[in-house]
């Protein structure tokens, strides 16, 4: 099935990434991480490229990719805010904070603000359970989060 998919720039670049990591033992997750890092998601053409390099079925790569919450099929916002919804944060008012966050950002979980600046995702534990509630903006961690923190972070990213 040589078609337009194999001629796309995405396919070419994903092939390069996959080939560069194919020597690892169990290379699929590292490749998916690297592809998502490059494109902000794992596009269909990249799945085809990875499958070809690893000699796997497309269904197998797709099946693995969709099992894991971290991998996206469509790009998210420029930045991602993960808000912890687990028990330690619940004990410190995490549920009410989540409602406030949705109200402040005007989006629900798994959604992106209209300007594409911020995606809101739930996370089940950031290991910041003694300074709950906790959140992470990309890799930047925040403890004892309040609605004001959410507002400040949203303003900071222009959401």
């Amino acid at each position, binding site marked *: 099935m040589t078609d337009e998919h194999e001629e796309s720039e995405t396919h070419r670049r994903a092939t390069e990434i996959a080939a560069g990591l194919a020597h690892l033992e169990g290379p699929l997750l590292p490749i998916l991480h690297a592809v998502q890092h490059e494109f902000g998601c794992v596009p269909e053409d990249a799945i085809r490229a990875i499958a070809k390099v690893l000699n796997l079925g497309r269904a197998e790569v797709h099946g693995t990719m969709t099992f894991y919450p971290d991998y996206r099929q469509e790009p998210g916002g420029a930045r991602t805010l993960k808000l912890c919804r687990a028990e330690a944060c619940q004990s410190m008012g995490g549920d009410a904070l989540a409602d406030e966050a949705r109200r402040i950002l005007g989006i629900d979980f798994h959604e992106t603000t209209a300007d594409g600046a911020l995606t809101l995702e739930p996370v*089940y534990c950031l290991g910041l359970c003694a300074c*709950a509630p906790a959140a992470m903006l990309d890799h930047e961690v925040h403890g004892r989060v309040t609605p004001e923190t959410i507002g400040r972070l949203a303003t900071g990213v222009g959401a």
Partner: protein
Amino acid sequence: MTRVYVPRDAAALALGADAVVVALETEAAVRGLDLEIVRNGSRGMIWLEPLVEVETDAGRVAYGPITADDVPGLLDAGLLTGGEHALGHGPTEAIPFFARQTRLTFARCGVTDPLSLEDYEAHGGLKGLRAAIAMAPADVVQAVTDSGLRGRGGAGFPTGIKWRTVLETSADRKYIVCNADEGDSGTFADRMIMEGDPFVLIEGMVISGLAVEATKGFIYVRSEYPHAIEALESAIATASAHGILGPDVLGSGRAFDLEVRVGAGAYVCGEETSLLNSLEGKRGIVRSKPPLPAHEGLFGKPTVINNVISLASVPVILAEGPAAYQEYGVGRSRGTIPIQLAGNVKHGGLFEAAFGMTLGELVDDVCGGTLSGRPVKAVQVGGPLGAYFPRALFDTPFDYEAFAAKDGLIGHAGVTIFDDTADMLSQARFAFEFCAVESCGKCTPCRIGSTRGVETIEKIRQGEDVPAQIELIEDLCETMKYGSLCALGGFTPYPVMSVLNHFRDEVVPAPQETPAR
């Protein structure tokens, strides 16, 4: 030159440690002060983070919690000579929360620069590995068995027995896999040791490799821990450059290589067989056992799979001898356990102690109760699959068997405190919800039962024939417990049933008096 310590631990960063460093550097430049800032791990007193320490003639002195705005005032008060300040706590190790602990696994955490191999060795690092190199593999395994160390990830399986099985299984290739997929809410010990003393985990894994004749190790870290990943990558590069990893471990003629692998947000991959599938590049679906991973693990090869804390406890066991470790603890729970005090907690953080302290001592004396100041209603021990204990069970000692006897589990030793505003029925519902979100889908009771559980709890909430719903939940929990391959489906009944058993009055509304006609 004065040495000032500001932690790089994620909890300290989450509370503003980087801004404190910037403020210190700025003020030092303006005032012409000669100071060296060391980014250490956390001492574990999270309510005091960012905890700034200064090295004085009288030892290290603590100040916290410090914000960037506090820095000029602190310097005015003589921070660099341990001067008095409202946020000062005197010698760090004399702070009661710290002084009451027995730090074996976390001995260096918060003390050293976690990325300095020199610091690591100066504080007793590599002593265990050197001892192991001089021993026969079977003797290393015996030492770990004799120490009484049991899996700190939650299952509590004797580590030495697991290692022996792998040693006795011959194969062309064997693996050591470190389970660093610490997804349980209320736990952060793995994260803290990986960020605060990564070399100790590396050392533990190399010892494990020598003991079972494995030559390759993987650390599977959850993606939610970017700072731990960074610290491990850096420490592994240093260890490789200094011959601790590679073809000839410290001149022993034996090889061991180590790689960090990053998870992708699936809680169930903390289950050992899911984790192995994930490492192999597959969906993180649970495998049936047998075969045990010790016989057929990663890529079908004999594999030691241990939690971070289990592996990080091995160096001190080899360095000080199994008898010294084994002396701590009670019953069949030997040694120390890093307990994580979390949630609505006044003095929260990491507290390493010998097994045997009661839950009440921990919650009331060590933590000082809740942050909100309200009465403690419940504590969940062992993460999302652990039971909620009411005050009536606070005499339970921290011991695997004692918790099991009360239908609970220690798990990874996270203790999450809830005050009297907690809605216990919601907590039971969440246990089912979480299971529904995270189920890998292999076992029907877990995949479908969890969703039915959410619906049934909703009916209880609506007051719809409550006794019948409770009976259904009990039956469902029985099915999930015995009909699931792994702890996700099998243990979700613990939090649910603990709410039904210990907080019954919240589940079944008090009978209304029939109005007189």
